[in-house]
């Protein structure tokens, strides 16, 4: 003998299930909203890089990573520090520093840049991006 379940009884059961599942969906929606709005751990904005002054001799260039891309810092004349992106503006190869000529040469298609990053010849359309450099004691701070 089966007991006849009335619509209201069935409804009550279904609403209970709905409540549970609804809570799950609610949580699944609330979590991304919370994470989206919550402040992040990374300071945000401070991506400064420090390079020891001793690494950058006069007339020489030191290559390093800045904002996860190749960059270069050089000292063409004593006390004068310049930080540039080392990514050639033509097709993206990494430029090489020609100590003798005092300029950058891109090995891919011969693009040339001055020590300040200006285009001297070849296919590059724009100068090398430059970054702010500050001398802080014996550390060079870029960015």
């Amino acid at each position, binding site marked *: 003998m089966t007991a006849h379940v009335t619509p209201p009884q069935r409804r009550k059961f279904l609403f209970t299930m709905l409540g549970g599942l609804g809570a799950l969906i609610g949580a699944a929606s609330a979590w*991304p909203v919370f*994470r*989206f*709005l919550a402040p992040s751990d990374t300071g945000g904005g401070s991506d400064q890089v420090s390079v020891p002054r001793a690494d950058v001799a006069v007339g020489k260039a030191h290559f390093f990573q800045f904002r996860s891309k190749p960059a270069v810092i050089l000292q063409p004349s004593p006390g004068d520090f310049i930080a540039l992106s080392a990514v050639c503006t033509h097709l993206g190869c990494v430029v090489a520093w020609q100590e003798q000529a005092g300029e950058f040469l891109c090995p891919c298609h011969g693009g040339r840049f001055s020590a300040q990053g200006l285009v001297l010849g070849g296919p590059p359309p724009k100068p090398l991006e430059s970054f702010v450099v500050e001398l802080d004691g014996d550390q060079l701070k870029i960015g």
Partner: protein
Amino acid sequence: MQPIKMLVDFFDVRLGVRDLYDRELKGYLLPRNVNVWYTLGAVVLSLFSLQIVTGIFLLMYYVPDSEKAFASVQYIVNEVPFGWLFRMLHAIGANVIMIALLLHMLSVLFMGSYKGRREFTWLSGFIILNLTMGLCLTGYLLPWSQLSFWATTVATDAAGAIPVIGDYLVEFLRGGPTVGNQTLGRFFALHVVGMPLILIGLIGAHLFCVKRRGISPPPFGPDYRTTDELPFFEHEKHAGGIPFFPNYFVKDAAIICFFMAFLLAIIFYAPGMFFPESAFQPADPFLTPPHIKPEWYFLWAYQTLKIFPSEIVGLGVQAAFMTFLALLPFIDRGPERRPSKRPLFMTCYVLIILAFVAISVWGHYS
């Protein structure tokens, strides 16, 4: 139940919420033969709400400047936790809204719900459709990708076909001779504030008209009655009908859930569906990518313009059709709503749908 009763009592003695519930929700009776198509209004309403919520979240990080817009969207998608989710909900949600809106309009046409002195409902709905297309158009530019830039260039160019004022109109739309930062500024203002405000007002008007006149019953079954055009106002009651809340509301909720599942399925299983490659390249005013096309819901307009040798004729044809559609309740005045008894209307209905589909497909492949 005691705490709940106490809570309801608190509001009831101040605002009469029980009476409100009895009249507007439980007492709001729908025709017995109401069908699933009647849920589409609620679907569209929820999707619009989703757009507003996700839009607000995106606004927290988006920068409406041509130099920074693309990078800000990249930041949202790559760096902000779940930024990708809100972006996708918003972008793909826009497409799902268009689908739901079109289905809603098609069902209204099929059931002749615009008849029986419901012209204002139809008119407000039609303007909502156009406003939604405007929201889609303005929103499309904001990511400042190659797709954004060039689709907007093509779309605003169309206005140039209008004689005399055409060229000035194009510049007026763009805020300048070409699409640029000034275009982004005005499109952003319209998309975020201007159009949403008007939209909310129109939706309010639309819902007011629906409730004031009463639900138009489906023209099927033995209970069908011809809607007489009375020379005085009458609210169409449905005595002995089913309560909107909770009886029909749960059906609304079910279809909303299915549409949400559909939206999420596209986001997780076919995320590239509405994102061609040019959507990921930053805008370059000097390089037009090949095969730039507007989004699918604009392909009919795009292809129509291409068919007609004269652009102004193409525009004119579209304008004529849209005007006809807007004024439909004033043109189709017959009281008959049963589809089987409206052969002329049904023939045009089917042919026009087929024509739209065909022309859109053609537009896609041309």
